[in-house]
């Protein structure tokens, strides 16, 4: 095994022995993918947070059934409920056990009290172990109760008729004449309040101009994913270049340089280890990206390859700063001074699509911005093979030049000035 491979193996082993850093590196894309998914809704099944509400209906009336029915509806996800009818004993036991977000108790005489416009209390027991979901239940129930009140104010008389005609067995059957009379009353009531609750509609015309691009439709999350990945790679590359200072400070760099091996072999080994780690992080990010945004699977291997080569490029862009600086602190300061503007301009903090035209034009000409555009094209499947081949060749050529520069510095003043 050559010294370069030996060094790469040694570095990978060292990185694996530092699980905190490794988890942070792997966690960055995970966290970023999660944030994007939360921010843009991802490509999931639309199931968000839903509260599980246990409902005890002691009234068993038309209105209590109406309230239960309203809670059960999922139309447009307006109410974040999942109602389950239980008896009182079971409800109290389960909420005490923390099973459910809240327990709603509709008291006996609820419908009568509403129709007689008397005070009535709904009891809501919230699960103290949960913070957000019970709060959502409380807010939504307040709206529902208001709704029930307005239904009563508007259709009070017909409803009272229905209630009075309710037979003892609870079946809502009435003579046809009675049904017709109630219907006419409801219709009149609607006509009377129509002008108030159904004001003349103002037509809103929304025009969404179609993009000229005839390519496939692209989800914003998919578009933003490469930016976030590149930010991750940038930070990762920055962290990996700092390891050269660790090697220098602990004396292992000088020990390596007095072995019968060239400085280039040592640098190549460290670079190979860095590329392997970058590829690993990139692969993890792409798997998550595929799950979160439904990235095209067929583009993922090429995207990982491009990320790895671009990662090596980022390492070699940041490494000269480390090797030229007079101290590790100065190196980190200089590195941040270079990295932050590049990240901002290069489309990692904000996608080019969200930038003013002039800024996007400048950003796409930064090294990382250019590499990011290639990655976007790969991820979205809008690349063309000859251009990408040229891009790969160009990137590798620049890497070779930077590698030579770094070798010269590493084996020279950087190691000797320690």
């Amino acid at each position: 095994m050559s010294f370069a491979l030996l060094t790469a193996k040694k570095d990978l082993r060292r990185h694996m022995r530092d699980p905190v850093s490794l988890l942070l590196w792997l966690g960055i894309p995970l966290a970023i993918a999660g944030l994007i998914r939360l921010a843009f809704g991802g490509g999931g099944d639309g199931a968000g947070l839903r509260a599980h509400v246990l409902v005890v209906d002691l009234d068993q009336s038309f209105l209590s059934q109406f309230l239960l029915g309203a809670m059960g509806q999922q139309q447009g996800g307006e109410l974040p409920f999942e109602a389950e009818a239980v008896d009182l004993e079971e409800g109290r036991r389960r909420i005490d056990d923390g099973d459910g977000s809240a327990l709603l108790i509709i008291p006996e005489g609820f419908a009568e009290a509403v129709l007689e416009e008397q005070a009535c209390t709904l009891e809501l027991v919230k699960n103290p172990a949960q913070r957000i979901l019970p709060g959502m239940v409380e807010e939504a129930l307040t709206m529902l109760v208001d709704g029930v009140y307005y239904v009563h104010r508007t259709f009070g008389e017909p409803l009272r008729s229905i209630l009075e005609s309710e037979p003892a067995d609870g079946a809502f059957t009435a003579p046809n004449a009675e049904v017709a009379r109630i219907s006419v009353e409801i219709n009149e009531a609607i006509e009377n309040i129509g002008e108030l609750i159904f004001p003349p509609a103002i037509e809103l015309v929304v025009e969404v101009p179609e993009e000229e691009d005839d390519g496939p439709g692209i989800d914003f999350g998919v578009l933003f994913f490469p930016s976030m990945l590149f930010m991750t790679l940038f930070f990762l590359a920055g962290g990996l270049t700092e390891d050269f200072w660790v090697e220098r400070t602990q004396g292992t760099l000088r020990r390596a340089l007095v072995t019968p091996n060239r400085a280039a072999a040592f640098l190549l080994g460290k670079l190979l280890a860095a590329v392997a780690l970058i590829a690993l992080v990139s692969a993890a990010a792409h798997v998550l990206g595929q799950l979160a945004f439904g990235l095209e699977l067929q583009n993922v291997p090429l995207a990982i390859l491009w990320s790895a080569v671009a990662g090596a490029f980022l390492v070699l862009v940041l490494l000269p700063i480390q090797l030229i600086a007079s101290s590790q602190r100065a190196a980190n300061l200089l590195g941040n001074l270079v990295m932050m503007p590049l990240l901002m301009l290069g489309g990692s903090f904000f996608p080019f699509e969200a930038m003013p035209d002039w800024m996007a034009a400048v950003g796409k000409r930064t090294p990382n911005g250019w590499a990011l555009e290639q990655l976007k094209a790969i991820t979205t499947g809008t690349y063309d093979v000859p251009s990408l081949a040229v891009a790969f060749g160009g990137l590798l050529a620049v890497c070779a030049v930077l590698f030579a520069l770094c070798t010269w510095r590493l084996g020279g003043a950087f190691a000797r000035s320690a």
Partner: protein
Amino acid sequence: MIEVEGLRKEYGDLVAVDGVSFTAEAGAIYGLLGPNGAGKSTTIGCLSGLLEPTAGSVRVLGRDVVGEALAARESLGVVPQELALYEDLSASENLAYWGGAYRMRGGELRARVAQVLEEVGLADRAKEPVKRFSGGMKRRLNFACGVLHRPQVLLLDEPTVGIDPQSRVRLIELVREQAAGGTCVLYTTHYMEEAESLCDRLGIIDGGKLIAEGTLAELRGKVGERDLLRLAGVFDPERVRAALEGVEDLDVVQADAELVMLAVPGASKRLPSLFAVLTEAGADVRETTMTQPSLESLFIELTGKELRE
């Protein structure tokens, strides 16, 4: 084995090593003795090929360390002053990496790693990460990494700095074993007693210059029979120098407001007369130390300062 001729190393205006020449032989320990900043590590840096000399030449086993760098390094083992180890890796992983750097492979490497770990007393800690080791254990492992590939020339840069007495004794034994096995050892230190007990030949270096060189006996001969008298108190340096100028067979090594050092034969017998002269010169002597002829007194005589300054 090691031939250094007119070695000079400059860093801008600073001359770190100035015209150093010496030869070290196989099976012997050559000591470079000098205070911190004397130029010992720079000399080792030039010998190992890490630093490029400004002038002069360094040859290891007849190979020029600049012109034939990689070939010269094949036969070199370096034990640097700092603990050049990977703390996250185990002792055996560190050794395997550095052995691999000298093209040792497979069974040969594994056998040698086990042997060296046994020699430095770390066999039972072979699998532990180095970060759990004590300072002395790290020093021994640092040494082991330098000798793993059985170098013909071993450069040791203050290998016993900051370790416990037990580890120091063990390390010195290991260095002796290397020399006994035919290795040419170059050993830098600022510990006088270490140099006296360990080295077959010594070079005293200060300010980048080799100010004395020879076997221990030869160097002691240079001091002669003169004792070193160290007087602490309150002095007027000019009056002291003037008063002592006429005293026969006496050298003023150092004279300042708080310390006067004199090289004088039979110092104990001459103390009363010397005190009389110093009192006449307005001196207030509060403490007197007398050192018999030694490497330390030679160093003080040659440099005008103590080794640990």
